């Protein structure tokens, strides 16, 4: 049985995590975004909602980290975080027993 993880991802019987829009595998249950495409860029690329540059307020570099389906390029995850931190955002769906 395929489990829906969220708006963009689903987990298949074999543990593969795939894009719900194009069916491309993007990871496995333990690492759902393992094979997804990640791009890090300036936070202001998120649009006009980022009102001022982070350097006015912090000495740490801040980045926009976006994770995409490698095939259809749907945005799977987005975060604006310190550049020196790994992405903490993940999920691990257990198979129904």
């Amino acid at each position, binding site marked *: 049985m395929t489990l*829906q993880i969220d*708006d963009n991802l689903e987990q298949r019987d074999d543990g593969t995590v795939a894009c719900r829009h194009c069916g491309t595998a993007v990871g496995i249950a333990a690492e759902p975004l393992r094979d997804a495409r990640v791009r890090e860029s300036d936070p202001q690329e998120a649009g006009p909602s980022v009102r001022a540059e982070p350097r006015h307020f912090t000495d740490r570099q801040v980045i926009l980290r976006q994770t995409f389906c490698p095939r259809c390029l749907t945005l799977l995850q987005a975060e604006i975080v310190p550049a020196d931190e790994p992405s903490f955002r993940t999920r691990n769906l257990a198979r129904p027993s």
Partner: protein
Amino acid sequence: MPTIPVAGSEEFANGPVSPQETRRVVGDSLRLHDVDPAAVDAVDPLTYEVIRHRLTSITEEMGEALKRMSGSVVVTDCNDFDAAIMDEVGDVVQVGLYNTELAASLDMAASWTLRNRCRRPGIGPGDMFLCNDPWVGGGLHQNDVSLFAPLFVDGELFCWTGAVAHQVDLGGVSPGSWSVGATDVFWESLPTPPVKIVEGGQIRDDIEDVYLRRSRVPKLVALDLRAKIGANNVAHERLRALCQKYGAATVKAVMRRTMNDAETRLRAKLSELPDGSWTSVAHQDSARAGDRGIYKIVLTLTKAGDRLTFDFTGTDPQVDGLINCTLTGLRGGIMPVILTMLCGDIPWAPGGIYRCIDIISEPGTINNCTFPAGIGKASVASGWATTNVATECLAGLLDAHPEHRRRVMSVCCGTWDFALLAGVDQRGGGFVTMLCDSMAGGLGARSDSDGVDTGGLACIPMGRVADVEMNEFAFPMLYLWRREEADSGGPGRFRGGVGASSCFIPYDSPLGGVHLVVSAPGKALPLAAGTSGGLPAGTQYDVLVRGSSIRGALAQGWIPSSLEAVGGDRELVAAHHETDLGPDDVYYTHWQGGGGYGDPLLRDPAAVAADVRAHKVSRRGAEEVYGVEFDEHGHIAGEATERRRAALRRRRAGLEMEGASS
């Protein structure tokens, strides 16, 4: 300076205690009312529902009593308070709909009081205990003063009622007790462990003097004290009447069953949800004035069977600043999210709900700090960030269920935009007030709809923003505007609700200006994360304009509607700042919206166009983030939109532009 351990403070390092342990410690010093489990099962369904709803309405009446007696705009107009009914050992049977984070740890305060005050000075009819020590329980920071009262029926302690409200000033270095330079709690308002301030129905003058002497506005705080006494008195009158009508045993049986019902129904709901774990992070920039650090709270939420475990391993150590919170703040961060996202159809009885969750947290971290860490901003700093990260993880859990995903909501307004004014008001009296304009934060996007614009805050279901006219009447200020801000809602297939801004000047104070304290993070990075590919909401943005031409504009009968129009020199305001506003100064503060849901390029172009028409999204935002093109008449240009979206899809992923229009 590093935090130095304080010998003896461990007495106040409280945590949840089982009813059995509380009863054991109280022993024979106090008769605690109890009811047989068989009596709980024996209550008929009709009686159960009638009494249960009566208990709910009593907490609402407590809130009404508080509002009618208080003189603080923070309470009367903004609802920054809450009320609760607890059983005889402090377990919360019913929490009011106001600021639920304030009432999330009343159980800890009542239990501590039972265990530590039952013999000296004793607990009797007509007594009430005041507490603003967040290490003990009750509110999240010192401004949240709780007043809880035992109700005795037939010589036994039958239950407790409690009221908590934000007091606008209880001392400390800075007005409003928001000491933005604080490195530890000794800069801040004095935490007061539970003290019997009402004895046998009479206020103890000596204790009240100790309490009020610290405040810059003691008359206002005294009035709020009486408002809370009134709220407890109203509740006791109603509960006595309920016991007379149905019998104390029946009322207590309903209290027990309400908590049992909340537990059973939440467990049933959790059982329907998939097992798994969801990890996320919430940041805060700046721990105090001059600090440029960024701090994190990491949460791994594990759902297994009918239980939730909130594991905060990986969270940063407590810091020299005012942003830490105690375990009370951590619980206050979690409970509002559980209530609103999981318990919409379940009694709001934290006493039962807490039985379904485990919390793993290391003492000495920013959302479980030890004494004497600074906590002056706990409620809207690490407490709030805990809410943010809990919201994100719970949204992930719900999103994985075909039915319950309708309850998903992204993070709401990522922080509290704190702006405090103090000085001399237009009537010549001293004043201090926290502006509560950011009660109109944007709510997070849902999995099937946009977030509510300026819809409020997740933790305060009945939070309100005071009318502009009320603030102008009460305080020496004049608004140039308060309005929703385009692009402040997190972009997504469903857009986060937009936040807003206020712009005002000091006005009519005999001093010519006012003192301003700012504590508003989210400037280095947005704090309301998106869900499922949705982008975060906008950043907090505060600007101070010095030497403006505002007085001239007003003299000409013109009210400027943009920062450009007021002239002067603009200063970006740091997350923590304290200064004076002069007669020619203008203050602009722009708080956050809610996070988005889903990829913005999947949003219906017609919805984007509607947002542009309604000024929720700018043309620039529509084009750069949503990839929607418009023709010269402002209509959607279909083919151009398809081309722009295709190109944007590749460009944002860092791919070549070639072939993008195919």
